[in-house]
Structures are given as C-alpha cells and as structure tokens.
C-alpha cells in the first residue's frame, strides 16, 4: 500500500491533521499505539472552524450547568452556573463584594480569551519575519487588540505574565471562589498559583468558553474523528520515525518491525518522543532544546467508582489559593501533595478524577488520601500518575507561541525534511483539541 502521508497518533490533533490532509487528496494512514479511542483527553474547546471544515456533525459538546460545585467549609456548596447572574447570586451568599465584581470579571476575561482564540487558530506570529504578508498579519493582530479598547490592551499586557493569585486577589476576597478559579491557573503545570504566568494558563483554559465559565468543555472529538471515514487508522502499533541524511522516509512499527513508507510524516506524539530517537540526524543545539522541553508530569488522572452517579457535574476541592500553593510546595521538592487539588467530573457514564500535584515517582497512600478527601473508600479510586505532561510541554510563558515546541521552530516543521509535528506540544498547545492539528495541516499544505 502506498501512502502520501503517515500521521503518528490518533488523538484529536493527529486525526484532525490526517483528515485535513485527506481532504486535500492525500492518502493518509494514522498509526496509534492504543487499541481503543481514549476519550479522557477530550477536554477543551474544539474550534468551530475544525468542526465546520471537517463536517463533524456527530460531535457532542458537554456543557454542564452548573459547571462547578465547590464544597464549603462548614457545609453547603457554592455552585457556579453558565448564567453570570445566577453565579453572582450564589457568590453573594459568601461575599457581596465579590458578587458585585463577578459580571465585570467575566466580561474582561472573556475579552482576553478572545484575543488568544485569534492567536490560536493560526500559526504563531513569526517575530523574525521580513515577509510583508506575515508583518501585515502581526500588525493586524495588534490593531485587533487596539480596537478592543484601552482596558483590554492594559489587561493583556498586565495579566498575561501575572500569577493567578495576584489576579484573583486583585478582584475577589472569598477564599473558596479564588481557590476554585485559581485551580484552573495551575492546570497541568508544575507551578503554584503564586508563580508568574499562571494567569496566562487560566486564560488559556478559558478559551472557547462562554463568559463566566472557567472550566473547559468536554466533547467526544476523538471518537467523532475516528468514526469519520477518509483515513485509515492502524491501532496497537507504536511508530518510530525513519529518517536519514536529514530526510524522513516513513515509520517503523515497534512490535512487528514493519516499515511504512511515505514522503510525509506528521507526528502528534510529544516532540521529545518523536525527535529524540533521531538525535543523530539533528544539530545538537536543536536536539538539546527539544530534550529540555519542560513537560513534567504533575497530574494523576483516573476514575471514581460510585454506586450512584453524583449529583454534581464537576466537583472542585481547592478550598483556597493557600491550599493550592501548599499542594505545590510539596511537588516543588518532588513529593506528592499532602493535600492535593482534586477535581471530579461526571462524563458520559464515567466519573473522572484529576489529582494535582503528583510528580512522577513513588506514590505511597495516594489513593487513600484522595479517597479521604472525597469521603469514599480507597478501592473506589483508581489513579494513573502521569510521567509526562498531558500537554507534551507545559504552558509556561517560555514555551508558548513562537517558542513552542522550541524557540524558532513554531511552524510545525522540524530540521528533518518531510517530518512535521502537529500535537499539543506545538502551538497553541494542549487543551484545545484540533487547533494544533489544523494549523499544522495548513502549514503542510
């Protein structure tokens, strides 16, 4: 069988790239190491352009309401709803001052997330460019931001490098509210809420959501893409790129040793895993940059077995910013958080758990601790600590835009001719299934 392109990884980005390539008339095979579709990573905004371009009619977006349930000290819960007014009513019981600020906070964050959306649906701006079209595009982005008004320009410059704790302290007084919002700022980061750049991470995960919703939506994007005809998917085979003399020629499947040849190989696997075996083909400075990508695993994900489906859609255990910072303090020194941030989400017949911080290594009593926090028995909790970041590269300010996956190589290309990257390790990163895949496909075509 002759292929025009091989895509490594049948996650959302890999499949999006594959379908865009197929749509352009290429014969595409996708190689995936997992046997079945893994829906657990289908968290985040699916750009409407992707849905429209690929005609994903069977795509289901989950938009639970209320979107977050926060247990309160001394009983009761804070429920945050899709409706800004209803959330404000709920917040008012804790702090009238915070409730008064809620609508404006929601609006301002929405505006900023809108700027990121603009940046995310195209390749990262090329700051070294002399190409008039690229310069015009950068100027265009600048003008777009200017037109949003003075407040937006100030917010953008001020908030992006800020810590989420400073941002929230600037707006609110209630610990429970700040903890619940602050948790999004440290999602999949080995940073605490007082680390710089976490406000950006917060906005990144707000992208695509309605004003006042600060948890990314879930969808069935991977399953929907996998079910769509047009590309061949080969499962159960881990692939390594074949390259010689600076040119990719195909992949070799690890277990069978079978090789598949194609002039174009696109990898949605982590940049490091894709490129490290090819080190001999790479200039050391580039290879070193790739091996230094920060992608530290800090999250254990898993499932919760409950007799009854829970009443909440998403339960957040992050009682305060101090609680999150202390959880990070443990991780900073390589230990599991004594009191971790735990979030439980009901989805599609399952209950998923996100526990942070759980650095790679030993995890004595982790399940017990999480069970105690959730007031269930330890055998109801199954957790899988991640060795590496789910996002293939943490979304820290030094690893975004034209610095993602490594500085100077943000255009999905690699120094190896015919080898491209399209996974969440590339711009715009994890938590936006399909965006990197679409950008990469457009660069390739």
């Amino acid at each position, binding site marked *: 069988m002759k292929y025009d392109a091989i895509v490594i990884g049948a996650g959302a980005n890999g499949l999006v790239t594959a379908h865009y390539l197929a749509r352009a008339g290429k014969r595409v095979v996708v190689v995936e190491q997992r046997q079945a579709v893994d829906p657990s990573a289908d968290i985040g905004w699916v750009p409407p352009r992707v849905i429209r371009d690929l005609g994903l009619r069977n795509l289901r977006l989950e938009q639970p309401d209320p979107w977050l349930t926060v247990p309160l000290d001394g009983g009761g819960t804070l429920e945050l709803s899709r409706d800004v007014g209803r959330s404000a009513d709920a917040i008012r019981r804790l702090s009238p001052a915070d409730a008064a600020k809620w609508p404006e906070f929601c609006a301002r964050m929405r505006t900023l997330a809108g700027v990121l959306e603009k940046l995310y649906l195209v390749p990262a701006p090329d700051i070294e460019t002399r190409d008039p079209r690229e310069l015009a595009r950068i100027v265009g982005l600048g003008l777009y931001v200017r037109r949003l008004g003075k407040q937006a320009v100030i917010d953008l410059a001020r908030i992006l490098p800020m810590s989420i704790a400073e941002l929230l302290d600037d707006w609110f007084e209630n610990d429970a509210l700040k903890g619940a919002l602050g948790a999004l700022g440290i999602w999949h980061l080995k940073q605490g809420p007082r680390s710089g750049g976490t406000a950006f991470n917060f906005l990144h995960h707000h992208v695509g959501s309605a004003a006042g919703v600060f948890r990314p939506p879930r969808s069935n994007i991977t399953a929907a893409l996998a079910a769509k005809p047009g590309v061949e998917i080969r499962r159960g085979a881990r692939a390594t790129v074949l390259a*010689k*003399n*600076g040119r990719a020629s195909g992949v070799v499947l690890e277990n069978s040793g079978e090789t598949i040849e194609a002039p174009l190989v696109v990898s949605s696997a982590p940049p490091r895993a894709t490129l*490290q*075996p090819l*080190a*001999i*083909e790479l*200039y*050391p*400075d*580039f*290879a*070193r940059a790739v*091996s230094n990508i920060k992608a530290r695993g800090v999250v254990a994900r898993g499932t919760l077995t409950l007799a009854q489906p829970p009443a909440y859609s998403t339960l957040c255990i992050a009682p305060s910013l101090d609680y999150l910072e202390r959880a990070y303090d443990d991780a900073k020194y390589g230990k599991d958080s004594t009191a971790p941030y735990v979030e439980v989400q009901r989805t599609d017949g399952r209950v998923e758990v996100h526990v942070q911080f759980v650095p790679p290594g030993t995890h004595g009593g982790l399940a017990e601790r999480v069970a105690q926090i959730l007031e269930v028995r330890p055998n109801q909790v199954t957790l899988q600590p991640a060795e590496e970041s789910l996002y293939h590269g943490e979304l820290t300010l030094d690893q975004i835009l034209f610095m993602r996956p490594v500085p100077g190589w943000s255009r999905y290309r690699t120094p190896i001719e015919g080898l491209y990257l399209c996974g969440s390790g590339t711009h715009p990163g994890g938590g936006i299934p399909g965006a990197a895949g679409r950008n990469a496909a457009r660069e390739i075509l």
Partner: protein
Amino acid sequence: MSLRTTPFHPRTGPLSEGQAWRRWAGYVVASAYELSHDREYHAIRNSAALFDVSPLYKYMVTGKDASRLLDHVVTRNVGKAKVGQVLYTPWCDDEGKQIDDGTISVLGEQTFRMTSADPTLRWLHLNASGLDVTIADVSETTAALSLQGPSSRAILQIAAERDLSALKYFRLTSAKIRNIPVTISRTGYTGDLGFEVWVDASQAVPLWDALIETGTPYGLTPAGMLALDVARIEAGLLLIEVDYFSSRHALIESQKSSPLELGLGWTVATDKERYNGQAALDAERKRGPSWQFTGLTVDWDSLEQLYADVGLPPRLPSQAWRTSVPIYDRGGHTQLGYATSGGWSPLLKRYMALAHLGSEHAPGMEVRMEVTVEHHRKQAKALVTPLPFFNPERKRA
C-alpha cells in the same frame, strides 16, 4: 586561577634562559628556551626539535557508536578510516562554519583519541545523545611531545628500538621507549618529517630524558612556540584565533569561516551520512566558496625600495606576526582581503604571509600588502602563492 605547568615542566622549566613563557589552553609553555628562537627554528629544518604539546585538549572516545559520534561531529569520514590512521579534520556548526580543527587517532575499532584547540567535551556530549559511547577528557592525564625535523626518525628509532620506516604519514603505532608505553603518530605542525609521542602524564619526565639523551648527538634541540610559528607558516597550517575564528567565538557573521574557504575542502567528505554543517557545506561547494585562504610572497625589491625611500636598509620582522593586515589590489585602493599571519622564512629566504582573499585571485596575481615603514603606512608588492610555501619530500617519504 593561575596557569598550570605541563607534566614536562620539571625539565622544560630549568631550560628556559629568558623565562619567556606563553599561555596555551591554561598552561604555560616556552616561547623560546634560548633568548632568540633562531637556533630552535633551524633545528626543525636541519636536525630535530622537541616541542612540549601537552596543552592540546585530548578526548578518548570509546564504545560501539564511537565512530558514529565522531562522524556526526567532524567533516571527514571517520567510519572509513582504518585502525592506525590519524585524520586531520575540522568541525563545523549547522551553517557549515568552522568551530575548531584537530586530529582523530584511530586507536582501535571502537577507540579514538581526538585532539582540539578549544575545550570540546561538552560539544561531544551534546552530539552523543542516544549513542552508546563513552567520552573521557584525558587532557591532563595524557602528555605529548612533538619530535620534528629531518633527524626525528633516526632518533625515535633508536629510542624505541625499532624500525619506523614503515610508519607512514598520518599513521600511528604503539611502542615502548625505555619500557614506557607510548603511542607514536607520524604527525606534527611543522610540515616536515616528524612524529608526536603520546604518553601517560606520570611517565612524562622519563620520556623526555630518554628522547633528549638519544637525540642530543643528532642535534635534537628543545624548541618553543616562536620557532614553531615560523615553521607552521612555511607549512601553510592554520592557527585558530589567528588565521580563523571559531564560529563559537565569532561576534559577527563575517568573522566566521567555512572549511571550504580555509582551503580545507579536501577534509569535507562527500561520501558520508549527515553531519553537522553538511547541508550548508554541500550548498557552498556547489556554488563555490567566495573566500580562499592562500599564501602571499612579499616582493623583496618592492620592500627594499620602501625602506630605501626613507634612507634605511630593509627591515624584516624578527618573529612571525599574527595581526590582521589589509591586502589591496595592484592600484592600492581597493581592499581585497587581509593577511592573518606572516614572517620571514630563514630557510626559503622569503617574506611570507597567510591571507584571506576573494576566491577569484589566482596564484601569481599581484596584490599589495600594507607594511609600516618608519611609522608610515606603505604598500609592498606581493604575489599570491599557493600553500604550502615549504613542502619537503621527506615529510611523506
């Protein structure tokens, strides 16, 4: 941090008549042992000279992927080299600009010794990612002497008690000198018949004594860097930070050079897999390098006239110089390039210089070199001369 002395210092130290020392890679080595380097120079060309070259950086690269690593780094084809061979080679950055140059001794199928002018350990490690290879910095534990000159083979044969006539140019062999295990390579930096002797640093002094004792009847003379500098210019051999700048230390693009521009095209393999700088060097070879590294011979009559004009007899540099000197066209107005080192060759009776010129200036072409005569800038006529200036048959015989 103070400068270190080499393992031969217990012997070289007392020999220094004028305490003229020079820094080399963090060590002190003799500029000249006598007050003038003249006799040391003539020993290189007429009998034999002994240099302490221990400050060279030396790395042992061993393991299954050792030759793959070196092939990844350098421009020569290491995989094709046979055991017992020594390769002179440059290495480059991704843009094909030269980082450094040195030698690779093939000591075994999986054992290589690499020498360099600049520290290279980190660079080797960076290139070794994913390879099964061990890299050891043996700079301090390996001492080296360079025995150069027409009598060098005779001296070494007696010292090593074996026939070395079969040891060809750029080949090596292991041997024993008074029971001291050494590696003898037929290499050097003088462009003459010569050898380098590699030894464990702990045996440095007895080795020195053995060679001096054996060699003295043959006129063996310890020699310093000033004499070596004249010889290497005669041989047309490059010196880093003088004739070219490492691309790692260059501040601007124009300070960098490619091996093709430096006359090292013969060291850039066309028959090997990807190595650092390959794509850039292939492209440069295709379009032709825009610079060349060439010799210049300053015209005696022209130089004499410049001095005669101010009422002086001609003056010659007493040592080799290493400063950048502008080179102009015949008219003396348009600058064509620059000389990077030069000096008087006592053997050839010629004023020579090494220069960077545009590739279009063929041997025999007349140019002008700036000379300072009695505080005034003048231009002397010079002819583009192919390198090397001096290339005796005995070098390879």
